[in-house]
């Protein structure tokens, strides 16, 4: 069972403004930590630091441990941290199935095909494999994007406002699908909307920019 531990994170924006100070938290399998705060407070930068994809100019110190192993000096691709962004970024030059095959790790050619077909069925998208991603609805694309990340077998899942671009009718459906599929993982969710936060999740509040910053961890 994976566990993510973050110790002594200090995160500074390009202008030198401190975004996050002395942040410590741990997250076990099946737990969700919702990161909330106003725009520009550093929520997405926190995910950027965890995945080593922070834009140039940001400075960060701190430690990341995953299953007891320190990973903050590893490159992105070796951290086993899955990321789902606000836009689904399904690769337009690949079919829906090829997007999933791109994410899937290991297996023979036949096993890979079978797993992708099974995943599509699970998402209610059976028969959509050869479709161009552009022909899918927003909700369908969101499910494929999540599946692609989960098929890469991450040890932690990061979600950066994954529901914000969906219409209200589909949002609840996708939320449910997300929590079902990621129930075995530690999940860090960045959101503006309290309704996105599942029951039992802890909330990390990050203060607004320009004011004295307070980072507060609210227990479940």
């Amino acid at each position, binding site marked *: 069972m994976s566990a993510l531990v973050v110790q002594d994170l200090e995160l500074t924006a390009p202008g030198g403004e401190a975004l996050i100070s002395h942040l410590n938290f741990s997250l076990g399998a099946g737990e969700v930590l919702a990161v909330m705060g106003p725009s520009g407070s550093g929520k997405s930068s926190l995910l950027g630091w965890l*995945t*080593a*994809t922070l*834009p*140039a100019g940001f400075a960060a110190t701190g430690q990341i441990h995953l299953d007891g192993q320190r990973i903050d000096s590893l*490159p*992105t*691709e*070796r*951290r*086993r*941290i*899955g*990321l789902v*962004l606000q*836009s689904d*970024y399904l*690769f*337009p*030059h*690949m079919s829906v199935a*090829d997007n999933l*095959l*791109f*994410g*899937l*790790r*290991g*297996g023979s*050619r036949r096993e*890979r095909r079978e797993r992708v077909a099974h995943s599509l069925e699970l998402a209610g998208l059976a028969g959509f494999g050869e479709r161009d991603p552009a022909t899918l609805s927003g909700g369908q694309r969101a499910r494929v994007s999540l599946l*692609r*990340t989960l098929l*890469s077998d*991450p040890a932690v899942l*990061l979600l950066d406002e994954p529901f914000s671009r969906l219409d209200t009718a589909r949002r609840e459906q996708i939320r449910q699908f997300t929590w079902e599929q990621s129930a075995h993982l530690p999940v860090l969710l960045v959101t503006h909307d309290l309704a996105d936060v599942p029951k039992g999740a802890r909330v990390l509040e990050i203060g607004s920019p320009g004011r004295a910053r307070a980072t507060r961890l609210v227990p479940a």
Partner: protein
Amino acid sequence: MAVGQPAALLVAVLFISPLAAGLLGTFVQASAGADLLRNLGEVLNDPRLRAALVLTVFTGGLASVLVAALTSVVLVSAHGTRAWRALNAALPPLLAVPHAALAVGIAFLFAPSGFVLRLMSPSLTGYDRPPTDWTVPDAWGISLIVGLVVKETPFLVLAAVAQLRGLDVDESLSIGRTLGYSPARCWSRLILPRLWPRIRLAFLAILAFNLAVVDMAILLGPGHPPTLAVWLVQLVSDPSTRHVAAIGALLLTGIVIAACALVLLSERVLGLMAARRRRNGQRRPGSQLARRLGQAIAWILTLTGVLSLLMLPLWSFASRWRFPHAWPSAWTLQHWTHRLGSVFEPAVATLFFALISAVFAVCAGIVWLEAERRGRVPRLDSLWYVPLLVPQTTLLFGWQVWAIHAQLNGGWLVVMHAHWVYSLPYVVLILATAWRELDPRWMHASATLGVGYWRTLWRVRLPLLAGPVAQAAAVAVAVSVAQYLPTLLLGAGRQATLATELVAGQGGMDRRSMATLAVLQAVLPLTAFVLALRWQRRQRFAAPVAVVP
């Protein structure tokens, strides 16, 4: 009244008619005297053809493959690094410098008595005299390949950079890497397959240019045998072999078409292989060594270009520079003062052609894009690539025939027209994206204030697009200054520019005089670029340059 169909049609006629007439003229000339097949047989039986063909395909083909490979290496290894900005700043000047001037600089850099060997001699090489083991130009065409790669790689890199903006590169890299792929694999599987269709035409233009280049091939290519294009230019100057030259020009066009077809076929095959690789899910750790090596290659390439340019002023002011001294031991202004009289006329002619053709090209580009925006003419992006894809020899041999018939050959008007035809595609391709994407609400806002069409165009649209317009004008100047073959053939030797003087000086002129001419030829477009950049900075509200073809 607004910019409409008649003005745009005039632009189209002035642009298309010489291209069509040029092709037709070459075809007519090829079948002159006897019949086309007999003339073709005469060319095919010429013992010089085989060697020229092999050299052309080797130099043009290999240089193009290297340009594509190095562009990928530069993108994969340098994108997103701190060096990326510096690299991007160094590339536009290299793009602005004319081929002939850069070729002279490269010769000064890599010749047996060149700067590279001077830096290493005698301590590392033991040479206290220039070695005789090799020459620049060399018999294999290696110097020509180096010249083409140094000149054309910045072109493709900048074309790629302009297109990357629409591909969500950072997000794709983040997603790809969190899925477990190394940066190099993210590029090869996620970004390059989407980038290629956007830069395909630019690459084909480079391929066509590399196969048919004349000025650089004269300065850096072997002389016996020369490349096919150079041999054809030698043949066309003799009336008795003009039909042979015309047949050869058609043959060269056939080679360019075959090479382009081969690229498109390879694209299909590589595309299928790439799709299979994307599905296999194999991850391998990225190699820091490979990344560093890629960065080193990018820097060596840039450094070669920059050093080649620095060689020009160095030689033009050098008085005594004995081998193996790294730097001149005495400096002089003599080469400049002595040559001032002889270079004045070509310099003025170069400036005249550049300024007038740039002004007309920018005006014509604006007329076309404005008519296109208003739905008066269709979008014809591929048309502008025609002069860039068809070898200059093929178009100009035929164009010259019509110019002679119309008694225009040798006059400035026909030379100016040719410069305009070769500048216009760049102007349109640079302006197009910005012109099409400018928010129409600016014009609506102006119209609702009661401002008329022309005033809105002049006071709102053009100032907002000042950056791309200035950049397009600078590129038009650079293209005109570099034109060698159109000036030579249509000017019939009566229109001397810096390009024609520089190429004519090959073999007969001393290094310092060549350097003086090359400096002058390089300074004109560089000045245009600096002015465009300054203008762009002053117009802080102007839209950024959106695309480089």
